[in-house]
């Protein structure tokens, strides 16, 4: 049995009677539900009786329908009365109408013009740039205080961050950089084989990995691993009021939280870059020796021939810059995190995305500078 609603209108007396019957359950609803609501929205009557005698069972479906109808009656100044409704319904209706609906501004999204949209983007970009600038400036001021031994920072925290950003990152850096070296060697060998010049795979891998690929891969790994961790840790501290506790105690979060992380990653990234270079060369050697049939002596002789201190230093410079960028992006997102769980998620994602974007920008700038200076 389903739910039924029958509306009978007496146009002469400008009155009506709505008779409800059947099972008014969430899974059931009368076919003419919308039609009845339309009738109540533009009523041709000034008085209505709602009769519930035929209702056999009911749940929120019935209450929601009645609330809708009675709201329309109140809005359209239609007198109404409820007759023979099951016990409990009237008290639930009283409860539903007990607190008036909050009148507030329309919060639906307003369609904005193209100019307003562009203007908002410009304003947000300007505000974000200013915030990032002040964050970097405060971190620098904290670093100066550290040099003057006036920063509130625990040596143990710095060492712990160094361990986390350094030794603990070795396994993932080893795996990824080994595979990148392997892929480079594979892809290069396909072309070089055509000219019988497989031996130059070693030079290709050595130059590519040391000049930029080692630093980039190390940077991407650290952005996803350590930068995200900084944002999540500091963001959670923000949510748990731990950052407030530091501030009210007169301890700068920049000294206590940001500086150890920036120092640790800035110190570790150059070392990780050298390690990544080494693992990349090992990956290339694996392909050269075991798949292209080169002798280990030949492979490493050619590698040493191709290696230059200039390329290694360029790679280390890239790695150092990436370290600062990743640490700043991670800490910036964490310290400026909102105060709820989803804000921590957003901060973590933003830390990784911003790190990679700024690493790319930095790579472009460094490449341009090295080319201008003929390095």
């Amino acid at each position, binding site marked *: 049995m389903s739910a039924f609603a029958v509306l009978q209108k007496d146009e002469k007396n400008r009155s009506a009677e709505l008779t409800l019957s059947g099972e008014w359950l969430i899974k059931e609803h009368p076919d003419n539900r919308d039609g009845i609501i339309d009738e109540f929205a533009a009523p041709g009557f000034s008085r209505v009786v709602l009769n519930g005698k035929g209702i056999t069972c009911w749940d929120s479906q019935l209450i929601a329908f009645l609330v809708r109808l009675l709201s329309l009656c109140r809005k359209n100044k239609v007198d109404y009365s409820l007759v023979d409704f099951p016990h409990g319904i009237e008290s639930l209706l009283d409860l539903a109408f007990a607190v008036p609906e909050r009148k507030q501004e329309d919060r639906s999204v307003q369609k904005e013009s193209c100019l307003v949209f562009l203007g908002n983007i410009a304003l947000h970009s300007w505000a974000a740039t200013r915030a990032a600038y002040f964050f970097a400036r405060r971190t620098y001021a904290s670093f100066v205080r550290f040099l003057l031994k006036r920063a509130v920072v625990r040596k143990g925290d710095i060492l712990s961050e160094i361990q986390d950003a350094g030794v603990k990152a070795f396994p993932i850096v080893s795996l990824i950089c080994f595979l990148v070296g392997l892929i480079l060697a594979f892809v290069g060998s396909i072309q070089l084989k055509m000219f019988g010049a497989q031996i130059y795979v070693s030079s290709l891998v050595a130059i590519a990995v040391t000049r930029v690929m080692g630093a980039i891969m190390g940077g991407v790994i650290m952005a996803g691993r350590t930068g995200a961790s900084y944002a999540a840790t500091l963001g959670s501290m923000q949510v748990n*009021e731990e950052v*407030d506790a530091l*501030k009210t105690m007169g301890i700068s979060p920049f000294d206590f939280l940001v500086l150890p992380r920036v120092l640790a990653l800035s110190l570790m990234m150059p070392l990780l870059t050298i390690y990544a270079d080494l693992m990349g060369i090992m990956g290339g050697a694996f392909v050269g020796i075991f798949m292209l049939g080169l002798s280990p002596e030949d492979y490493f002789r050619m590698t040493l021939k191709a290696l230059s201190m200039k390329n290694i230093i360029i790679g280390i410079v890239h790695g150092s810059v990436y370290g600062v960028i990743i640490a700043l992006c991670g800490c910036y997102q964490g310290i400026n995190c909102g105060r709820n769980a989803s804000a921590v998620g957003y901060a973590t994602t933003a830390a990784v995305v911003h790190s990679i974007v700024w690493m790319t920008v930095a790579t472009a700038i460094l490449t341009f500078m090295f080319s201008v200076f003929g390095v």
Partner: protein
Amino acid sequence: MAEPFLEIKDLTVAYDENVIMRDVNFTVNAQDVFVIMGASGCGKSTLLTVLTGLKRPLKGTELFDGQPFWGNNATKADRDASMRKAGILYQSGALWSSMTLAENIALPLEQYTDLTPAEIRDIVALKLDLVGLGGFQDYYPAEISGGMKKRAGLARALALDPQIVFFDEPSAGLDPISSKNLDDLILQIKENLHTTIVIVTHELPSIFAIGTNSIYLDAQTKTVIAGGNPNELLKNPPNETIEHFLTRGKK
């Protein structure tokens, strides 16, 4: 007559253009247990962030132990100096999760005193004993219960023997017995250490048990609509809103 410790005048607080409270005036006397009460969403915790220097008010002044804190050309250095006399217990305890309880309590002592490590160790042990957590020095915050976190947070707030302690909803999330124990602890601290207490709460049993003075922040008018001893307010409610709040709507 008791000396005023906090004097708030014409304080207006806003988030961007959204005014949270306006023209708030009150005075907290030394050794008061001063309760800031009001319904959820009235801005009690926001007021606490202003009183403790975390949020700048739109206008108004605050004098902290007679010194300018907000307004009157007060600087951040003034606020930092004032906050050295204060301790804060946050709603969640806000213990630094990467440190043990002992390290949490020792940090302000290391930062602001010239005590030797042995002296700091003794003071840390004393503060933990005072809050009933003796022997928990080497525990991390994640290893203890919510009630213990609050007590450890209180031990940290008391580390520097502050003249005033701010509590943000200390009873939130605690069972009635733990909540009463915390109230007793607050009273003991007030009695024995002669500390001024400011509590943000809407827990009626706590308000009546320990409050000596109070203000009621009203969400509708966005200002203080009543003040005084909570038990007196219950006996002679100045308006219906207060009566409704203090009697849980029974009258």
